[in-house]
């Protein structure tokens, strides 16, 4: 398994040939840092996404419906769990360090989870629009991802996210075919979530984006964003909802929807932890982490979970 690359050119040639880097390979430090930061943000986002949805889980309308929602949440937190292990294996930070950086507001998570789900409609909009956006991004990473451990985890994540999106679509359809109050609720959710979901893809990729050069991402941000727009704009319209983009127009020549100019200021604010719900979300997560510190301390006293919490090896008494 011992491989090495004398120069960055050799390493990049290996990546260009479709080579897969493994955790114990002597990869260039810049690559290690870039892959780590990308996976850390993905892990943080799975976790913070769970916290965004948890506000509404206890209120899920319906007994069997609630079981389905719990299964989805279990998947999402499971993704976070797996991703933190993959990230920790890169040796940059331990899982605890990643969590503590997250709760101290020192690391990033996706823009959408800096917003609050204020109605049940928002919960459905997240499952439908945001999960779909995440899925489009993840599929593009999976397609050509040069970091082996991440690629293998993504295979599973993508399979599960596909189910979540279908659950979200199914719930959206019930609302679309439902009462006036339901439709109004969802239209308002759409007004709140359409742009953040679109901004999830980020501004157009820079020409020198190392994530593209090192085959961590396989497609440019604007290409992925456009894929989402072309799918969701007609779908939302066909169910009678209004896409909240006043300057949107149909480009008859290119046969595409053009949503018009995108204001990136809201995205930038979330990157600086200044989104509409950033401070509450981070504060509550941090408070909760400190309130339960005694549990982790006691388990590490028994030499069980400290190891687990530190490097993500085995489960601490989980079923």
């Amino acid at each position, binding site marked *: 398994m011992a491989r090495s690359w004398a120069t960055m050119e050799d390493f990049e040639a290996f990546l260009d040939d479709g080579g897969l880097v493994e955790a114990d390979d002597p990869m260039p430090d810049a690559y290690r840092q870039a892959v780590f930061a990308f996976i850390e943000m993905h892990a943080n986002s799975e976790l913070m996404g769970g916290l965004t949805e948890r506000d509404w*889980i*206890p209120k899920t309308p319906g007994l069997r419906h609630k079981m389905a929602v*719990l299964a989805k949440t279990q998947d999402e937190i499971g993704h*976070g769990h797996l991703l933190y292990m993959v990230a920790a294996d890169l040796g940059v930070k331990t899982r605890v360090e990643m969590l503590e950086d997250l709760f101290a507001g020192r690391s990033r998570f996706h823009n959408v989870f800096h917003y609050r789900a204020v109605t*049940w409609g928002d919960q459905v909009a997240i499952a439908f629009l945001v999960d779909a956006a995440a899925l489009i991004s993840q599929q593009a990473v999976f397609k050509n991802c040069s970091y082996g451990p991440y690629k293998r985890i993504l295979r599973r994540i993508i399979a599960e996210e596909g189910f979540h999106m279908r659950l979200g679509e199914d719930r959206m359809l019930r609302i679309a075919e*439902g009462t006036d109050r339901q439709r109004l609720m969802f239209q308002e959710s759409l007004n709140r979530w359409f742009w953040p979901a679109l901004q999830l893809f980020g501004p157009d990729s820079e020409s020198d984006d190392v994530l593209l050069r090192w085959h961590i991402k396989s497609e440019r941000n604007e290409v992925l964003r456009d894929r989402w727009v072309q799918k969701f704009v007609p779908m939302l319209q066909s169910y009678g909802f209004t896409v909240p983009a006043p300057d949107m127009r149909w480009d008859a020549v290119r046969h595409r929807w053009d949503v018009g100019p995108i204001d990136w200021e809201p995205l930038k604010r979330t990157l600086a932890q200044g989104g509409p719900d950033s401070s509450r979300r981070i504060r509550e997560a941090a408070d909760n982490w400190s309130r339960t510190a*005694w549990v*982790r301390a006691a388990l590490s006293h*028994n030499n069980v*979970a400290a190891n687990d919490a530190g490097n993500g090896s085995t489960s601490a008494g989980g079923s």
Partner: protein
Amino acid sequence: MSEPHGVREYLLAFADDEHLMGQQHTEWIGVAPFLEEDLAVSSIGQDELGHAALLYELVLDLEGVEATDPALDVLAFGRPSDDYRCCHLVEYTTHDWAEALVRHWIYDTFEAMRWQLVAGSSLPKLASVARKALQEEAFHRRHADALLDKLLDAPEARERILEALGAVYPLVEGLCEPVEGEAGAMSTGVAAASTADLLEPLHQAIEARFDSSDSIGSRTASLQNRRTKRSADFDPLLRRMREVLDYDPGAVW
């Protein structure tokens, strides 16, 4: 109370307990002490809600109503509060994770004993649900026990756990309190013995597990009046569970 009414009330008490216990687990997702625990409560919560759904289905069977989602949800969410038969332990709003863990252990210890009472039930569907549930309960117990084994061994954690035990202990008596209709369930062979018979074994199990007579204190009589009286925590909990349903009563979600 006639026998069919008794059986119905017996099943409802069981179903309501499972439903509310599952509901209470949903409140701890994402705020547990570590990720594995978030995963465990979402899994255990699904199991308990699944038991509730199967038990409500049995009630609908008795009524000759098809067990569609809306019919199930009317039973689960749509009854007046004094028609519920849950115990106060599952209605109780916990104040911290230690209380949630202690309740989880006590409830699941009791639940495994309760399923045994119906494992040979004259209702074949109930007996088959019991077999499935007993397998799951073994995992639930193992989960709670693994945590308590370690936490009770660490001085500060032990203190917190015992304090939590002191808070929930007064509700143990009510957990084993039968509904009036239980006699009908026993005479028809739906249940092999009374829920009240579980009280002594449950007390013994609690004493063996926590080994602390200080936190347990003296026994507290149930204030549930054969499970017909709700605690102060119930109405806010039911409102929370019904919030979306109440938003538009004609809607299908």
